[in-house]
């Protein structure tokens, strides 16, 4: 049971590190980014290629940086020009970008699954009462907590964090105070994309790399963002942890309902509290 709970935390941490970027982007740009899962997938594949030459840690850093650049490009070329258009257009465009990314991955890396070796530093096992647990999986939980803590501190105590919080609540009001909301948005999308890329690399040693990996986790990420409260990091954190437990414990205790349960919870929460659990912005 303890092992299952820990595995739930591992998945919850991964979900949060991916969904946090999605939540930040929605909070600031009011966009539903269907290509976010593709950023995660590209990060994983890029990390795989870099790791084969330079090892895991450079792959983690370089992949996150590359995805940050891609995120900045995405914001400047897609999100900003389309921000005042019908949300359905952005949804369709980002969905199209996700399909393109999947094709690119299939062209470069093929349809076969790949795996990335975990770093030697984290390759051990931790002995627990009655069982054991991989150190790498504990490191993933730590990664999720690090992302949550880092983002919270950044948003709460930095000057840019103040601007992000202001702009996510009322972008026009923030802008007339002198906040360059375009630049802040670019930064946030870049950070969100970097987190997606880093999450892909972090997940790669425990999940298989396949072109379908984007879609697999994207749905759960959207549930995290919607149930948590659109744009809310705190809500996303709580929901990711709950969803992680549901996913893992569901497989053990009610495998026939595991796929269904997150959607049932989402519908229930939205009926009970349409603004989501936290119900406010970043």
């Amino acid at each position, binding site marked *: 049971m303890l092992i299952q709970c820990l595995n739930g935390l591992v998945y919850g941490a991964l979900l949060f590190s991916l969904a946090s970027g999605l939540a930040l982007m929605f909070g600031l740009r009011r966009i539903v980014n269907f290509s976010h899962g593709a950023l995660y997938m590209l990060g994983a594949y890029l990390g795989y290629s870099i790791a084969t030459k330079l090892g895991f840690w450079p792959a983690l850093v370089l992949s996150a940086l590359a995805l940050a650049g891609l995120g900045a490009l995405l914001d400047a070329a897609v999100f900003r020009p389309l921000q005042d258009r019908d949300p359905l257009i952005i949804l369709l465009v980002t969905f199209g970008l996700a399909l393109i990314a999947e094709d690119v991955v299939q062209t470069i890396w093929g349809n076969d699954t790949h795996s990335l070796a975990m770093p030697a530093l984290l390759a051990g096992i931790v002995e627990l009462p009655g069982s054991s647990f991989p150190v790498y999986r504990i490191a993933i939980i730590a990664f999720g907590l690090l992302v949550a803590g880092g983002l919270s501190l950044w948003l709460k105590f930095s000057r840019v964090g103040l601007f992000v*919080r*202001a702009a996510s*609540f009322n972008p026009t009001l923030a802008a007339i*105070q*002198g906040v360059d909301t375009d630049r802040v948005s670019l930064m946030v999308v870049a950070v969100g994309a970097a987190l997606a890329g880093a999450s892909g690399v972090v997940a790669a040693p425990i999940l298989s790399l396949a072109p379908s990996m984007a879609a697999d986790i994207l749905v759960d990420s959207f549930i995290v963002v919607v149930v948590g409260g659109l744009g809310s990091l705190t809500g996303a954190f709580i929901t990711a942890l709950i969803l992680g437990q549901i996913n893992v414990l569901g497989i053990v205790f009610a495998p026939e309902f595991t796929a269904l349960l997150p959607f049932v919870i989402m519908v229930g929460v939205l009926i009970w509290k349409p603004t989501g659990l936290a119900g*406010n912005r970043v």
Partner: protein
Amino acid sequence: MTPLLHYDAVEACYGHAQILHGTSFSVDKGASVAILGRNGVGKTTVVNTLFGIARLTGGTIRLAGKPLTRPRPYSAARAGVSVVIQGRGILQNLTVRENLLLGAATRRRGPWNLQRVYELYPVLQERADAPGTALSGGQQQMLALGRGLMANPDLLVLDEPSEGLAPVIVDELAVVLNRLRAEGTTILLIEQNLSLVERVAEDFFVLSKGRIVDQGKIAATGRAELQKHIAI
């Protein structure tokens, strides 16, 4: 002398709805000017055009002689214009202190900082960690004005600052605005409360259907004449 703010035949719209139809007026440095007009004539659009919220479709806006060809909300702020918007615009997800710090986003140098705003309004320091919207209406107006001052503006624009305030609070506001003006801040006041206008502004422009239709000195114009311009 080059005016600090100059509107020359400005036309502006929201979407396809044109609101300003050739609005022209000037505000000199150090002046205190009121824009009067009935509800819905485009007074707030005058401000919104300066900040790029309403789309500038014709004419020219000049700030200290420099044309704002494509106004953006943050470009006007960075050029030294600070606005206290109608309804105050206090962000509920920020504390009082954070709302004030947001006002310093432009990092313009000048006499105003957090400490000086706290000296002006000690209640803001006492409630520094409370959510901005937890303050009373009068305190929120202090916060909005304090946030505007944190930008160390050359031009302070106030859109209906007395709205919803008790007369005693409006009196205090008039004292503070006169003090600011005495210290050299240029003030553009959009207001329907003549009691405040008469105490703060020297000159006035009357806006009607998106055009300036009258102007003059407040002191030389009777209350009845001014009242005529703002009667609903």
